[in-house]
């Protein structure tokens, strides 16, 4: 079994007047192409864990391995490159630029990565947007789309660099139940068609129970690790 992502003995302590430890000796490995859910009550440390997995934040102790590569010795730029090439992020709030069109928002990571946008990339953006059911609205300013369409645009944006791993922090947390269902179906479809590894933080039982694996975090520790 090849691991897409692995945490080894990860601790996280937030500095401050009173330093607080929020993760305790976390050991977790996620297999390539697996679809995983992380659950747990608010404040249990899920987002902290996801940010560390995505190398957006550093562990206080322990190691993060991405695609069998340790991130310990990577420089800030090295990390940014690894992240840009292998990980796509989806958050509860989509952070789209409102005055840009959906398509422009999807192409945004590429503007950051390289300066020129090739025809290949633009074609890929169109393909992904079609997969996400956004063909009709791709030239609309993102502010004028529905919540579900905006979130799907954010997912398309996360996919534009063809990441092998998607990390999502309550991606459907802000959507009504019907839109949650469609968004989730799309994530499953991407998982199947693009062989992407998914790690999704969710409060939604219907999302979690369809994952191949559920990890429950309680007080910064793994309380349960369950397989379907």
């Amino acid at each position, binding site marked *: 079994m090849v691991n897409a992502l692995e945490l080894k003995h990860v601790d996280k302590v937030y500095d401050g007047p009173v330093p607080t430890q929020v993760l305790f000796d976390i050991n977790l490995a996620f297999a390539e192409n697996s679809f995983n859910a992380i*659950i747990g009550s608010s404040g249990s440390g899920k987002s902290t864990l996801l940010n560390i997995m995505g190398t957006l934040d550093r562990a206080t102790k322990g190691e993060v391995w991405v695609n069998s590569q340790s991130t310990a010795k990577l420089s800030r730029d090295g990390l940014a490159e690894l992240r840009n090439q292998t990980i796509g992020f989806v958050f509860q709030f989509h952070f789209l630029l409102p005055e840009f069109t959906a398509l422009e928002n999807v192409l945004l990571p590429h503007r950051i990565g390289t300066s020129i946008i090739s025809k290949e990339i633009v074609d890929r953006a169109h393909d992904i947007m079609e997969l996400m059911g956004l063909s009709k609205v791709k030239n609309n300013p993102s502010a004028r789309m529905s919540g579900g369409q905006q979130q799907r645009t954010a997912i398309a944006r996360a996919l534009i660099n063809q990441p092998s791993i998607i990390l999502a922090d309550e991606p459907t947390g802000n959507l009504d139940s019907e839109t949650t269902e469609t968004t989730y179906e799309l994530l499953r479809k991407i998982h199947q068609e693009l062989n992407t590894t998914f790690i999704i933080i969710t409060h939604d*039982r219907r999302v*979690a*129970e369809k994952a191949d694996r*559920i990890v*429950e975090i309680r007080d910064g520790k793994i*309380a*349960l*690790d*369950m*397989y*379907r």
Partner: protein
Amino acid sequence: MHPLAKEFLVPFTQDNKAVCVRLVLDRLEKAELEIHTLYEQVLAPVLNSIAPSDQEQTSSIWQEHVRTGIIETIIACCYPYILKKSPKVEIAPTVLVFCPAEEYHQVGARMACDFFTLCGYHAVFIGANTPATEFLPAIKSLTPQYIVISISNYYNLVAAKRAIDQIRTVAGDTITIIVGGHAVSRNGDIRKNLGADLILQTYADVHALAKGDGLL
């Protein structure tokens, strides 16, 4: 597949309750069928074939409900035969059986409860979807020696763990906590993870426990 299961599937997939029930009662009446064989080799596999608890729905939900209803009717009809077989025990240990909150699949739990009765225990089935506000008073009032928690959908392992934590808080290690069900069978370290004492999945498991307890 057991020959009776094959035979049973025909009326079952036609939602023909009367034929299904008659078919089974006929065999029980003639004493050609053991309860545990019926449960494990006929009813469980046919139910799983139409209502896999962890996969995309293969039949519609109303149909799953109708067919689950057929199975539950048969289980209810088995009770007199179970009583006949159940050994006379001086002081039968009490076993309390339930499904955790939000777990609505109760057939496995009912079968487990009957297995305990068959083996001489005083087994009480509380129900599906049982929150702490129900099982804690039940524990207090019935003072069971064993608690059996049955989990089908693996998401409900979360609620099962919570239930076990709550039981430990009031009862410590004085009650043996048993887990079983579909969600448990696929998960390697789950017993330890849940904080349960035992995993029992089959009639043979319950039978072995009863032997150890000197009931058989």
